[in-house]
């Protein structure tokens, strides 16, 4: 399949927050006044100024401490529900770049009902900025269209973040999974066939972040988990809490 992908190998992430800040730097995002609520995760969530946030999660398994880092961002879905949701109201409000597959919001998103857009996202990504504009990671479409890597990938010192052609990235991800599977039997790639931003984790995804994978809905089990045609998703989005 054409286009780009990002592979995020959490086994190599040291939570240095280079990506969190590099993203703000490139996008000229600001910062908000935060408080330490008993965690190093700050800001506590994605927001209108934060398209990439490193999530910290302490877990104890068999008496052993683990500290999982999840540098969260838009997954740039192959079939983005947010695009379906928005374009039901406002045509051409979301660019899905043909060359790269990057999913990019335009100004016209402002006209779509944000709650629906937000709740259509299985990963809880879209946010509003200070000007009531829906925002999220753009995959640095301007950078990648000019032969550069996304700012977060570029800044990552440990190759936790990787960028390239989707086929190569998928292969990289699968090889890495195979290499660590013996040491980490629970290792898995998250929603690799549905998204362009593919995470590798070593434990249950929910231990990293409740929205690490698209939520599965037992009530409607047809098709791909978490994915619905536009109208159905809009109706059921809130019920499922997605």
């Amino acid at each position, binding site marked *: 399949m054409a286009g780009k992908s990002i592979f995020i190998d959490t086994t190599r992430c*040291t939570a240095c927050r280079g990506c969190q800040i590099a993203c703000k730097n490139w996008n000229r995002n600001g910062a908000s006044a935060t408080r330490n609520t008993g965690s*190093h995760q*700050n800001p506590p969530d994605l927001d209108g100024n934060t398209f990439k946030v490193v999530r910290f999660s302490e877990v104890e398994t068999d008496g052993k401490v683990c500290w999982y*880092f999840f540098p969260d961002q838009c997954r740039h879905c192959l079939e983005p529900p947010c695009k379906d949701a928005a374009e039901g109201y406002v045509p051409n409000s979301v660019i899905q770049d043909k060359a790269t597959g990057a999913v990019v919001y335009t100004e016209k998103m402002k006209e779509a009902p944000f709650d629906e857009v937000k709740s259509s996202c299985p990963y809880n990504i879209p946010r509003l900025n200070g000007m009531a504009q829906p925002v999220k990671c753009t995959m640095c479409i301007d950078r990648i269209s000019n032969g550069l890597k996304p700012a977060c990938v570029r800044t990552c*010192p440990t*190759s936790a973040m990787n960028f390239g052609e989707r086929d190569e990235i998928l292969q990289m991800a699968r090889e890495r999974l195979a290499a660590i599977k013996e040491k980490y039997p629970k290792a898995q790639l998250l929603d690799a066939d549905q998204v362009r931003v593919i995470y590798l984790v070593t434990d249950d995804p929910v231990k990293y972040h409740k929205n690490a994978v698209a939520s599965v809905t037992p009530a409607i089990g047809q098709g791909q988990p978490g994915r619905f045609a536009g109208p159905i998703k809009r109706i059921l989005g809130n019920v499922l809490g997605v």
Partner: protein
Amino acid sequence: MTNHWIDLANSDCILIMGSNAAENHPISFRWVLKAQDNGATVIHVDPRFTRTSTKADIYAPLRSGTDIAFLGGMIKYILENDKFFTSYVVNYTNGPYIVGEKYSFKDGLFSGFNSEKKSYDSSTWAFELDDQGIPKKDLTLQDPRCVFQLLKTHYSRYDLDIVSSVTGTPKDDLLKVYLAYSATGVSDKAGTIMYAMGWCQHTVGVQNIRAMSIIQLLLGNMGIAGGGVNALRGESNVQGSTDAGLLFHILPGYLPSPTASLATLADYNKKNTPTSKDPLSANWWQNRPKYMVSLLKALYGDAAKKENDFCYSWLPKGDEGKSYSWLDLFDAMYSKQLKGFFAWGMNPACSGANANKTREAFANLDWMVNVNVFDNETASFWRGPGMNPKQIKTEVFFLPCAAFLEKEGSISNSGRWAQWRYKAQEPLGDSKPDGDIIYELFKEIRDLYKKDKKAKFADPILNLKWDYATNNKFDAHLAAKAINGYWLEDKTIGDKTYKKGELVPAFAMLQDDGSTSSGTWIYCQSYNQDGNNMARRDKSDSSGIGLYPKWSWAWPVNRRIIYNRASVDPTGKPWNPKKPVIEYVGEVKDGKYASGSWKGDVPDGPWPHLQNPDGSPRADGKLAFIMRSDGYGALFGPGLKDGPFPEHYEPLECPVEKNSFGLQLNNPIAAIIKSERDVIKTCDPRYPFVGTTYRVTEHWQTGVLTRNLPWLIEAEPQLFVEISEQLAEIRNIKNGEKVIVESARGMLEAVAIVTKRFRPFTIQGTEIHQVGLPWHYGWIFPPEGGDSANLLTPSVGDPNTRIPESKAFMVNVRKKGA
């Protein structure tokens, strides 16, 4: 670092201890993980499970202040399990040396202790000499008085049970670490240590590092790719500033500062120039007089002549035995002995131990000059909490300086790479590069002295060479060249003639007759006739071990891995041919080198090595450790104030009443500052928890820069204290709650982070809790950000370095209002 950052990738076993490298030197992990990709084992030993620990193959917890116990156990393990690299120990260390009969160790004290003076007479630690004046040796390492056997005896007390009981590290974890690390004691495996303030900031700081040096020498890890003792320094140019002698006890290039009893240059040279009777020892510091004279010529130019001792008497002299170090400096300020003060690019109100005392001391000054990029707690001390400006007479001059991207010059990283950097924008507003400020300030001072003919001892001021400007503006290139050094007259050496005014090629050419100048001899070659070597950006590298010899320039003489003479066997062949650092290659006739030279990195001296290929000794060879007067790596170290072998002593504030290893509880000669403001409370039920200080990736030092950057303060907005879930339960503290942390010296409000990553230790059978705080915050900004953890830390220090014991002291943590 003896090695450098990229070299970490060459390692087979990386021990990270006294360091939280993934958080505080994040990009180092690019290379640590590369080593791990190639099969290396990464070990992290730390009181707390950190971001570094998440990537480690082995994590072992340890109570702050017990590193020597941990490492002593490793030394015992290595010796008892024959993990040491015999050939390396015999040929390159003082393991075979016979120690004189006066040496002993009993009840926690070494021989020669004077309890009144609180010092050691180290003459009782001297080696037994032969009639040539060279230490006697037993190359079989069996003599009961040889260093190797004394080492074994000394650490025989460090068995697993006791070590575990002192450090709180489970025995299984100790064994895992010992087994993994000692596996590098073979010729084709390299182990390295990454350490930082976690080892330095203790009353046994230097001995912590000595313990690791012993391990590295036993395992043959010094001088090899992926080995070495790697100090991870904390500021972008603390390496360079140390090299430049911005400390009371050293002149540029690590020349000792002259003291009062050394009246003449000859006295100075005699005291400070080591001699060696062994023709095989290069004893490189025998060249000290050349560097001292070259420095004096750099300082005083033509005024410095042989007849006037090159103006040696113009250098100020400290009193014998008196320390002018940080703790002493602020004690002098507190005791009203200081009137004027420069805090140049520093924020002592937050960075110094026992910071309340420092803040109060500022008010005793007549005047203070503070140079910085942002306002800070030092410049504004007079309006800080608890201060009444109306009663503070101190004049404060705040000078705004340019940020790093607004000026040109070089800085030296931890790997000794002096890297030239460039100006990307004009300094903001009225700010100026520090170089400009220094240059112009001194000119103003000198003008005053020029005008006042009766001024006191104005010679050094009037004659200081100060021609570092182009078009009246400070020119870093001129300074860099002066640091490299010039030929001051035509000189012919061998078949080459150097011209007056040319730059000296390298420090081997520096002279003691006044014909050369050099500001910092170890930087000689950094900027020479070839150009500004520090500005090189050539990435070609055929070393196979990531030396990058043409990227910038490393001291000394671009040697990227120092002590590399120990990376080869005595015939000059690499211990590990797969990762050679240097190799002696030559024409061999009848089993002997007829000619030869070194390939690879810049060798530790051009001479051949100790043996011919047939094993016969070479009279023109040199011993491996050229900077030591005897040429050998020191397992037994007579040069330190508190003992030739590291011994576990408890921190001055500690949670135990007895030292499990001996009768002496604390370092008997720890530096202790005594004033009513310097309080120590040990084994005091009011302060029942071990406290430590540390850092986070997102902030840097006192946070003067980083607290003012929105993206960073957003990520870590407030002072926090990390406490275990068990301690939280005992004190009924909830995650995210504001709590009080207090020591005998001060009190702070912090947000509690209740975490699984701290666990109570079992020490001598008792449950001991440890907590930790970052010291990045200060009252100036942000509001609610919290203040500096150094309000809690003690003003006691290591007896050799006098670095404060900021890593282990006793605190209480309680709910607000409790």
